């Protein structure tokens, strides 16, 4: 299963509000 990484933190926070999940931020220097 591949991780469906989002690229927008605020959109992810809004999405988390609707489904009760937490937000995981991965700050990376490697190419996305």
């Amino acid at each position, binding site marked *: *299963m591949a991780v469906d990484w989002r690229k927008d933190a605020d959109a992810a926070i809004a999405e988390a509000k609707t489904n009760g999940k937490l937000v995981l931020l991965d700050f990376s220097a490697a190419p996305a």
Partner: protein
Amino acid sequence: VSEYIAQNFIPVKLNIKDSRAAWHRFEVQWSPTIMILDSDGKEHFRYEGFLPPANFLAELDFGRGRVAFHRKQWDEATSLFNSAAARDTKTEMAAEGAYWAAVAQYQKTHDPSALKNWGKRIAAEYPNTTWARRALVYTTEGAPKA
């Protein structure tokens, strides 16, 4: 790992080249930095550095445990801290997870025996950790009053 992430999080990858504003906003100093936020955008946990999968999952368990702890969900917090501790029993996380599991149980019950029992256990199992040093107060001077 990917299944665990999908089950528990909305995952966001913020590359420094494309997301400098987010790096600045969250005051990220090093790569990689992993952070857990609640649905209000409040940060509950972060760590820096690359880790093998088992240790990465332990950090995520621990971070979820911190969220549950902040929400006063003591049993959920205890379960997650214990899970973090069990993923690699040879690391500091094992001791730290055991510590916070005991604290969560103490917060739930206000029974000092949770801390006393933990103090004895960690002193025996993880003697060379800072968590064993923290345990000293519970093993030699008694637990704090509720």
